[in-house]
């Protein structure tokens, strides 16, 4: 096998692994959208906020330290303790659930029945709010997040695969963190699917997704379900935040993974869980391969910024309902 071909395979594998992460973020969107019709643009910022909170708690930072110091002229920064990773993750989850509750109580409860596009714009507002809040609480400097995940390229894979090509081929370079992330994302995706299919809450969630009125009339609390899905989305965001944060530090750009997930959703359809997964993989692989084969050699590179969108756009023009959506019959 030629080295070029093998490097192509390597790109493909890396694309698949990126795709799983996209799928994970996209799944956060789908969960909220199915249950409440809200297209949550703030999903990415939630990931950033989750990661920020986690690093803050782990290193014992004082929330709002910056603000307190500026107002009272004090110099507090740190409680002077460190919280172990697992404990910090648990605490962060509590924070995310509180956040879910507040979002429901103060924002979306008042917007029930509004047009989807109004809800969408409200989540853009939420994204700004949360981004500012995260910065106010924990500061906006880039932070390192180390929850003990393995880092660096895997020698093992490299050594095993080095024999496949000729002298020009040094084996597949695959990041260990990516491998762990893929594994975690896959587990999370599967457990979420199981949750929504086989548990009582999951059934209630699907009922709410189908028809609010009908769900209410059989005794399902909409408020409870909505808080539940926002919490789940918070969990998904936190996991995505940890993976991305461990890789490239916790900083503003982390929130941009939401922008990666949007075309995934357009491709897969906003309501389809398998759609989110398959769409994520297609876009992950597609953008890496496009960059490798066409973008970098012919177009000056950095095509990942727009490729996914243009692909989704072209796809939608021909199939407006997405990959797995049903054909739309319009009525008057």
């Amino acid at each position, binding site marked *: 096998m030629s080295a070029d071909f093998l490097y192509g395979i390597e790109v493909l594998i890396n694309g698949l692994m990126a795709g799983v992460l996209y799928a994970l973020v996209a799944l956060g969107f789908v969960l909220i959208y199915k249950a409440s019709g809200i297209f949550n643009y703030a999903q990415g910022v939630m990931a950033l906020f989750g990661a920020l909170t986690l690093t803050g708690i782990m290193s014992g930072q004082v929330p709002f330290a910056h603000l307190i110091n500026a107002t009272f002229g004090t110099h507090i920064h740190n409680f002077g303790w460190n919280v172990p990773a697992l404990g910090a993750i648990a605490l962060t989850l509590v924070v995310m659930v509180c956040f879910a509750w507040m979002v429901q109580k103060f924002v979306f409860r008042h917007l029930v029945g509004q047009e989807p596009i109004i809800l969408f714009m409200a989540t853009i507002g939420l994204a700004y709010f949360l981004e500012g809040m995260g910065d106010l609480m924990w500061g906006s400097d880039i932070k390192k997040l180390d929850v003990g995940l393995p880092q660096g390229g895997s020698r093992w894979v490299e050594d095993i695969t080095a024999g496949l090509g000729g002298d020009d081929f040094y084996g597949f370079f695959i990041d260990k963190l990516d491998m762990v992330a893929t594994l975690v994302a896959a587990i999370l995706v599967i457990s979420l699917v199981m949750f929504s299919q086989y548990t009582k809450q999951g059934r209630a969630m699907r009922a709410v997704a189908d028809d609010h009125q009908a769900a209410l009339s059989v005794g399902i609390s909409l408020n409870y379900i909505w808080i539940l899905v926002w919490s789940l989305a918070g969990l998904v965001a936190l996991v995505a935040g940890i993976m991305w944060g461990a890789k490239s530090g916790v900083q503003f750009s982390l929130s941009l993974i939401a922008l990666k997930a949007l075309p995934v959703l357009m491709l897969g359809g906003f309501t389809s869980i398998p759609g989110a997964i398959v769409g994520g993989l297609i876009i992950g692989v597609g953008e890496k391969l496009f960059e490798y084969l066409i973008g970098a050699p012919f177009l000056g590179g950095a095509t990942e910024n727009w490729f996914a969108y243009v692909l989704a756009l072209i796809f939608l023009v021909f199939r407006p309902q997405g990959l797995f959506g049903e*054909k739309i*019959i*319009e009525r*008057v």
Partner: protein
Amino acid sequence: MMLENQTLAPSDGYVTADGRQIGGVMMDLRNITLRFGGVEAIKDISFDIREGEIRAIIGPNGAGKSSMLNVISGFYVPQEGEVWFNGAKRPPTKPYQVARQGIARTFQNIALFEGMSVLDNVMTGRLRQMSSGLFSQALWWGKAQTEEVENRAAVERIIDFLEIQSIRKTPVGRLPYGLKKRVELARALAAEPHLLLLDEPMAGMNVEEKEDMSRFILDVNDEFGTTIALIEHDMGVVMDLSDRVVVMDYGRKIGDGTPEEVRNNEAVIDAYLGVSHD
């Protein structure tokens, strides 16, 4: 006075019980079949609508009546069959082009533009009479301005006719149901249509409102000579208003003729009217 439907030639007219002259065939639907996926909403239906008449389509819920109107207004394209309008076979036509040929309609669930005033809603009905271009309108120069005033005058006549002067500038979203229905009629009338399609114009109205609406429908037909096709559930209204009635059930036509003929049609009684056999 009324001829059997089958024996009337397409170009001939007839005279109704109240002495109105009805012309030749205006809209002719031939063997229309409409499917959604595997479901046949309309199965091989043919009927015609004649110049100047009031034609009713009745039938139980889900019989395919609204789908039929949607076929006439070009919103649904039937898989089989032909639509003949004014003596020519209509090629596949976009709904807005159908509207511009002079077919206006109202909707079962009111489809007004909620964010606009009554006046603006009715003015949208005049689109087929307005042709000034983007640039003329951008500068509000020449045709754009004169056209606006002329059409406004025409719209005011409709507003007078339907007695909705006092709510002209009110946003439609604030109006009660009955008035909305009337504004919708005004919007359809503003187009000065040759054929007016009314989808359950009296649904959800009380007796008094129904009487008002019936009067408007008769007046429209009488004063403007507009041909009207309507869907309605209130049998009393249908029998009083219409010249001829088509009865649909499960996507099939089970009866067609004068109200008198339809009322005595066995199949219609079984499927819909539900009068006991005695």
